[in-house]
């Protein structure tokens, strides 16, 4: 099953390769990855999606914990965490069909970020299922290009 791992690491050169190297070395494929600094500038957060059964997943997290550069690992798989990805779609759009596409985009709270002679570029964020829905609708018009970020996730725990 898919696990969303949120790993708080030291913000230092080479740390990303320590983390990803370890995961791949232990035989797992990283399906999605995103990295960025957090509120403390000495730290970064790596959000990775890996496909692993529970025993294997436990082994990966234990091994990751052993990396000196890793501070904290949170499993955001099951706790209804907030998950977001950002996608840019470049969709075929002849002038007469533009409005339909803009309407679809609006329903999904997408943003038109570029308009070409025969295409529209739409920016959309959301969880995976929403973005999949949008992609399916755009397919009918022909998608020229898709670029998507890795998943980021945050727990809903409203402790503070």
């Amino acid at each position, binding site marked *: 099953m898919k696990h969303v791992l949120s790993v708080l690491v*030291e913000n230092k*050169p*080479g740390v990303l*390769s*320590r983390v990803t*190297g*370890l995961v791949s*070395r232990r035989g797992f494929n990283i399906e999605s990855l995103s990295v960025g600094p957090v509120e403390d500038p000495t730290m970064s957060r790596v959000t990775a999606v890996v496909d692993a059964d529970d*025993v294997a997943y*436990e*082994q990966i997290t*234990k*091994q990751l*914990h*052993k*990396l*000196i*550069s*890793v*501070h*904290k690992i949170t499993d955001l798989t099951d706790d209804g965490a907030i998950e977001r990805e950002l996608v840019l779609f470049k969709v075929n759009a002849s002038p007469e069909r533009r409005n339909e596409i803009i309407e679809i985009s609006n329903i999904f709270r997408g943003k038109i970020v570029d308009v070409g002679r025969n295409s529209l570029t739409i920016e959309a964020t959301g969880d995976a299922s929403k973005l999949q829905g949008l992609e399916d609708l755009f397919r009918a018009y022909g998608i020229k290009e898709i670029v998507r970020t890795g998943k980021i996730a945050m727990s809903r725990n409203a402790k503070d």
Partner: protein
Amino acid sequence: MTEKISSANDAFKSPAKRTAGSVGAPRGLGSRTEKQGQRMLGAEAVVASLEAEGVDTVFGYPGGQAIKIYDALYDSHQLNHVLARHEQGAVHMADGYARSTGKPGVAIVTSGPGATNTVTGIATAYMDSVPMVVITGQVPRAVIGTDSFQESDIVGITMPVVKHSFLLQSTDELTTTFREAFHIATTGRPGPVLIDIPSDLAGSEMVFEYPDEVNIPSYKPTYRGNAKQIRAACRLIEEAERPVLYVGGGCVISDASEEVVRLANLMRIPVVTTLMGKGAFPKSDPLNLGPVGMHGAKYSNLAMTEADLIIAAGARFSDRVTGKLDRFAPNAKVIHIDIDPAEIGKIREAQVPIVGDLKGVLQGLISQLEKDDAHPNTQTWLAEIDQWRDRFPIYHPGLKDAEDEIVPERVMMELSRQLDPASSIVVTEVGQHQMWAHQFIDREKPRTFLSSGGLGTMGFGFPAAVGAAIANPGAQVVCIAGDGSFQMNSQEMATAAINGVPVKVLIMDNRCLGMVHQWQKLFYDERYSQTLLEPNPDFVKLADAYGWEGKRIMHPDEVEGAIAEMLASEKPYLLDVAISREQNVYPMVAPGSALDDIMGAIDVAVGAVRTDMPASAVPQTSPCATIDAQFGGRWEAQPGDTGERMSAEEFQAEKEGAR
């Protein structure tokens, strides 16, 4: 039982209590050296840092990007630098130093090829959890990433085989980096740490301020075992009728021998030891069942298989121990004690996992058991094991061997007999000889048997023996080597000779890569692809060339005297012992077989013969008579075949006649 958590915690109030803080502190003066506060070059600060850590010996090899560090070393009164003849040798020496003393080993090498030559040594140390700090010179920061001369990304290359590594970015971080490196290398589950030092930093001025404390928030190994888990473990131990204490390298690292002995004797639990755990439990204790696993005794493997409780103490259920996993100890519950949480549940589920330092956890178990007034419940079990032990001995003097050939097992037993099992240090290379050493060399103390277990590195043993001999002046250090393995790092004979290190090397010379040859014989139709080393160099002349003493023996009568002569020598000494190429290590659990599926064990109920040889082990083309003689004239695989056989001598004569 209604004990309070606080009462169980009393176990930890003993003076032997250790924490990450106390274990990882500098062994040396730390901030109190006379160099503290002085202005100096980065290279001098490297040397000063090693001195502050109490390092007395470093092993290494210089080069362009390490030249400044070597220049600074020239002035050190504290550091004895041992110049190896190959960087791999230097790292294995540091490893042997570390394994035999428990102190971190230190190696210094240059960038590029110097650094890449350390990789096997680092990986070997990593697999066996050996504390080590490796310092590599690096090209100046300004040219890193430009493929400059002798540049290699050694931090990247070694990433999978280090516990941690640093690429030094500024002299401001130099001293904290060294403090952290030594702390990380020696605490928790120990391991190698690499520090890559760009040469411009070695040439920059700085003020030397060595810290005594470390602050690594992300690294806090758990030393103290959970009291509730300890009580749960006690309950299992008290209930068990067929327990086995499975002792691994963690017992050596944690200095827990005394506790293992106490626990085993308190509850009368039989003990099996892994290759890494050898020595942690004394051979003289009747509860010691010795080696377990692929070449373990049949009785040890049967004990594991039939156990109802396995107490894994610093052991990791390696495939060389478990055999086929789904048939490994099918009825046993498992108490798994390890300082590395990732080992627990990795291979075998544990009913009671305990993360912590073994010494403290075992002390906790013992005092809880004493408090519970627990009594051993293992008489029947021990009696059963004793029967197995009598019936399936690991060796039998009645085994028929060709009379004029030296038998490897007997060489090992004779060497063991002549060595002090508590003070001598035996180091092995990798192969058949390693397994014979594991089976037949008796050890009473930890850190007296050094062998590359996890990585199985040929070429480790000899330099490691040199390192151990340097670390333990006056100790009798013997390397049991194969003719193949020895040739992987024999250049270090120069290091031993020049430094006056009276290390002894006993080569079990079968003129082949015996262990691979054995597999080819048993599983690959005797197709000996690239395993024959014939003709070997004249090892005695090689010894002479390096200023060693040396001798070659070929006849059984010479063994006792030659070993005595070797051990009495005050110089480095090489004893080349010619043995047959056809000797296999038995008993053996074939790779992928279950632990109780053992071939070649002796069964005295049948006679002094090895039994349960697979059909594939019956030689098709090899000299039947020789083999038959070795196995007492019969093959269990062909029990009905009782026909006439040629004797070994007849066979030999016929073979010679045919030439």
